[in-house]
């Protein structure tokens, strides 16, 4: 099962919300969707879920266009919006029972599916509580259960971790991993990039509606052809080391922080080794020279900085 987004384009008046977006992900993958506020993430996801119509482009699931055939798209896709259910006086069971009926499930099949999903997401004890009175984490579970009722093969989740406490975030992460292992293709947007690093197999970065980078997490975080970050601890005067490093080529963004010198340099690990050798030759007693690993956050900041006017 492959989900492909091809040349998606959407404008609202003069604002181009999504501009020729192309990406794909497949069964068993959790794909992270990253971008600053107003980058076009929600618009893209809404177009994928058929809540908005693109001006151009298409979204296909195994070659079948969900724009041309929305009914087939609805059957194959489960959408979790960023808004949580706020209905007063409706219990969790009534809410889920309604959506199971609305999804076309009938008779014993409906009852067994409902019970299985309730067990899976751990909502059994909350069935008779009013939806509006649940915690954010539990509301998110209810929304996820609702999206899973018709057993979709693709899940699109818009900011599911927003506002959740750490325990609820871990639970959500584990649930999504189990779903991916069951063979579902999952697209999840989030502002918590460290969260995505732990959960995702691939990442898609957009800004101003345009694609910045897409690929597997390993590719995105790969050190090749990018800057490296290094921290150095010396027994000598750190300020003097800082001044020396500033004079070297390839070195940028040198800072003194908590007694350590932090720097970024262009090039690969060979350049790092040269920097260390030059510092020692200059007479500095280096006791620690550490390459800092780059996170998704660093990559994202760098990418978005690059396209901002």
């Amino acid at each position, binding site marked *: 099962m492959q989900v492909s987004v091809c040349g998606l384009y959407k404008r609202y008046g003069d604002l181009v919300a999504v501009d020729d977006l192309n990406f794909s992900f497949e069964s068993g993958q959790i794909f992270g969707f990253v971008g600053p506020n107003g980058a076009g993430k929600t618009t893209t996801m809404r177009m994928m879920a058929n809540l908005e*119509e*693109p001006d151009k482009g298409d979204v296909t699931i195994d070659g079948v266009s969900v724009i041309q055939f*929305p009914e087939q798209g*609805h059957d194959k896709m489960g959408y979790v919006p960023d808004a949580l259910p706020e*209905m*007063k006086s*409706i219990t969790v069971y009534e809410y889920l029972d309604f959506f199971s009926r*609305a999804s076309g499930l009938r008779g014993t099949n409906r009852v067994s599916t409902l019970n299985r999903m309730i067990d899976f997401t751990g909502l059994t004890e909350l069935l008779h509580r009013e939806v509006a009175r649940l915690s954010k984490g539990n509301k998110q579970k209810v929304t996820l259960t609702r999206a899973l009722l018709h057993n979709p093969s693709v899940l699109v989740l818009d900011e599911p971790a927003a506002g959740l406490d750490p325990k609820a975030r871990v639970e959500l992460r584990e649930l999504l991993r189990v779903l991916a292992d069951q063979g579902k293709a999952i697209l999840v947007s989030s502002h918590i990039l460290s969260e995505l690093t732990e959960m995702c197999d691939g990442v898609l970065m957009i800004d101003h509606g345009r694609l910045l980078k897409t690929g597997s997490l390993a590719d995105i975080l790969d050190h090749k052809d990018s800057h490296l970050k290094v921290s150095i601890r010396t027994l000598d005067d750190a300020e003097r080391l800082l001044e020396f490093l500033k004079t070297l080529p390839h070195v940028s963004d040198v800072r003194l922080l908590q007694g350590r010198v932090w720097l970024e340099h262009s090039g690969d690990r060979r350049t790092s080794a040269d920097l260390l050798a030059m510092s020692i030759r200059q007479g500095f007693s280096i006791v620690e020279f550490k390459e800092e690993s780059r996170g998704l956050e660093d990559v994202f900041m760098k990418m978005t900085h690059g396209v901002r006017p």
Partner: protein
Amino acid sequence: MSLMSRMDERMNPVLLTQLRVLMRGKIMLFAVLLYMVIMMITVVGSAPSNWNIRRSDHVQMLLSFLAFSFVIVLPTLNGLMQSGSKDNLELISLTRLRPAQIARGQLGMLWVQYALLLMMSLPFVVMIHYFGGMDLSLFYALLGLASLVGIAFSHANFWICGLTLSSGWKQFLCWSLVPCQITLFAYIVSWNSFNRFDRDGVVILTLTVLVVIAALYFWLCALHTSVHANRALPVRFYTVFCVTVGGLIWKAVDITSFEAWAAMALIIASATALIAAGERREYGIRYYRSISDQLWRRVLLFPFSSGTANGITCSLLIALIVLLLAGVKWLSWITLFVFVLSYALLSVVIKDRILKRWGGPAYTWWIVLGVGAIVILMPFLVYGLLSSQGLEGIEHSVMIYFSPVFLTDNSMMLGKFMASLITFASIGPLYFAPFKNQLKAYLQKRGPSG
């Protein structure tokens, strides 16, 4: 599978869920008990020995209570409005439920409640009939009419809640309907003085309320339908159907003045033209799929479908129906056509040229609706004020608006024709090309990419 289980499976999911909530809720139980107690006190407390003599007063009081008891439905309305919020409706639209099923489920809940109220009032009505010897069928007919009015207002509330407005505006509009509803209830109750009973009045009011209920149902279905689909089709088809059938009945039976129907139809034509100004100029992917492959169907359905060009054609069609039924001369035809077209194009220009960079699409639509109406009515109001004839002047100026149908004064009609022609000549070219393109795209069934 038992009968109950089969019913449970076949029931509309929206209706079923709302019924469950209603049965579980305490407010409804409290309201029903209170209603029963008040009715009991009213009947027992006012049961004198000479009931027959004063029966009209008692029936009046009882009918008042029954009519106003329909306020009991308000908490349910509130619950239904919550379930009909934009976020929730979007999620429902991702299921297999169709817009008409959602609308039927929501409105069915109100019908169930009104039916429940009518059934609950039955013992009290029978009691009064037994003691007072009143006309039971007439009493129930009036009560049924009051229920229909209540249902019509509940439908209207629903429709308002589906609009793209802030919740404050929605509440304001919904509460604004309450005095109108109470006034209509009072009007119906006043018919209870049997000597003043007007059978024709009851028939006209019942038919009007039924037409409004059906219209609100179609509008609600349209609101629940995706903006990308051809959602205007049933609404416009029903509107033109009502205008045509209504006109034919009015002309044949002549229940009341034919001019009243013509005036109403022209107002509908104007509103259709104004609404068309806010619609799409280009057909989207999903809309394109819904256009018929057969040319004759495409031609036939063009005026009823979504889209600016389609809506304006629909308003011209309504104007044509008015003129055909009114049987007026060719000059009147041209005058009215140019006037309606100028009216519509003026709204399009306001939206596209003046308000292009101002406000969101939803607000722009409302402004066009308001400004267009003010601009088009202004000359008549100014004429009325300048003529210094007070209300008479305004009445006369409103008559000019409908001049092709009602007035035989050629100089006045010529003036209107010239004014419309100047408006049309100045703004028509701006819109002519897009209109032509849209018509072509529809008839050739050309996709969004051309």
